[in-house]
């Protein structure tokens, strides 16, 4: 089994050769307790090689399976290796590893099973995304808050910390596009405890958000449908199965 103090830092990355090196370094600089694993989602650039050079473990998917599948690969990795705690941050450098300790707080105090870093929870209003994006974020926050009967302010944040229960849940079942929104409902349905802590996010370092307007409309519709389905869906109870090594 893994040393109980170790925390796995899951970093999904798709064509992030320009940012991934700094991301890995900054996580390692934040605390020596993190084992960084980069999930390379079928990148066409040197993402995997650069991450490896910077000392991260790299799991390379044979082809692009989408953000949800990539993140889930990280949770499976964490489950197999016996990690008690995991953090998840994006490979483009928008999440500051310095804030990870804040995310882990409620986990360590056993107040929550899954903690999300929210850009909106304290209303500091520092983060001003473009209008279309903001509408989408608020729309999902409202619906999810309504469905889960709990105030959720940032459902699209991929900045998270989880305990073993959260890892096992997501390793067994994780949605695909815009997975964080639906995952919130998943957490609620499985009666895991969800918490939000305020964080600030940095501007993207390289690359652009892969979302265009028409795509956003399509995703908003699709994820909204998925949300309501998620409330009535049949769930397989995820079992904590650790692959023998």
């Amino acid at each position, binding site marked *: 089994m893994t040393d109980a103090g170790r925390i796995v830092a899951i970093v999904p990355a798709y064509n992030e050769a320009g940012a991934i090196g700094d991301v890995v370094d900054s996580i390692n600089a934040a605390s020596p307790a993190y084992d960084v694993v980069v999930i390379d989602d079928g990148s066409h650039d040197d993402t995997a090689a650069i991450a490896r050079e910077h000392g991260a*473990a790299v*799991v390379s*998917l044979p082809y692009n399976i989408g953000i949800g599948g990539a993140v*889930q*690969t990280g949770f499976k990795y964490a489950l197999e290796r016996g990690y008690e705690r995991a953090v998840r941050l994006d490979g483009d450098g928008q999440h500051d590893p310095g804030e990870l300790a804040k995310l882990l707080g409620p986990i360590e105090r056993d107040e929550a099973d899954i903690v999300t870093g929210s850009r909106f929870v304290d209303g500091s209003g520092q983060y001003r995304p473009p209008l279309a994006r903001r509408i989408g974020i608020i729309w999902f926050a409202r619906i999810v808050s309504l469905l889960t009967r709990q105030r959720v302010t940032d459902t699209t944040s991929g900045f998270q910390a989880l305990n073993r229960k959260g890892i096992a849940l997501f390793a067994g079942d994780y949605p695909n596009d815009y997975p964080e929104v639906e995952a919130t409902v998943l957490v609620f349905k499985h009666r895991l405890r969800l918490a939000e802590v305020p964080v600030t996010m940095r501007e993207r370092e390289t690359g652009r958000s892969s979302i265009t307007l028409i795509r956003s409309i399509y995703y908003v519709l699709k994820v909204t449908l998925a949300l309501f389905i998620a409330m009535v869906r049949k769930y397989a109870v995820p079992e904590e199965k650790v692959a023998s090594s």
Partner: protein
Amino acid sequence: MTPVKISIAAAIASLLLILIVLELIRGRRLKERYALMWLVTGVALLVLSVWRGGLDTIAGWFGVETYPPAILFAVATLFIIIVLLHYSTVLSQLDDQNTVLAQRLALLEQRVDHVTSGTQEPPGDAS
């Protein structure tokens, strides 16, 4: 009453469908599991084109009085929708399985790389 020519043409078409499907199964290009719905479709259409009185009766049930062969189209469309829906579920299942396979492969590959490259234990893995 259904025109005889239509009945003959429809019967030939349904027979062709059945024969093609059977041939595809024989040549192992189609699995029985996915062929079954096509065979049911072919047989249903064949029965309705040969059994002319039956087609008229069924048309009567649905208030189709002027042109009973319309029922042939309706039945064919219904079966095609069922087949397509079935394929969508098969596709979704394959999609899921494909994702699981890719994940397993990637995780195993990572383990193997660390073992064969003779480096120290992969981070965090003391097992």
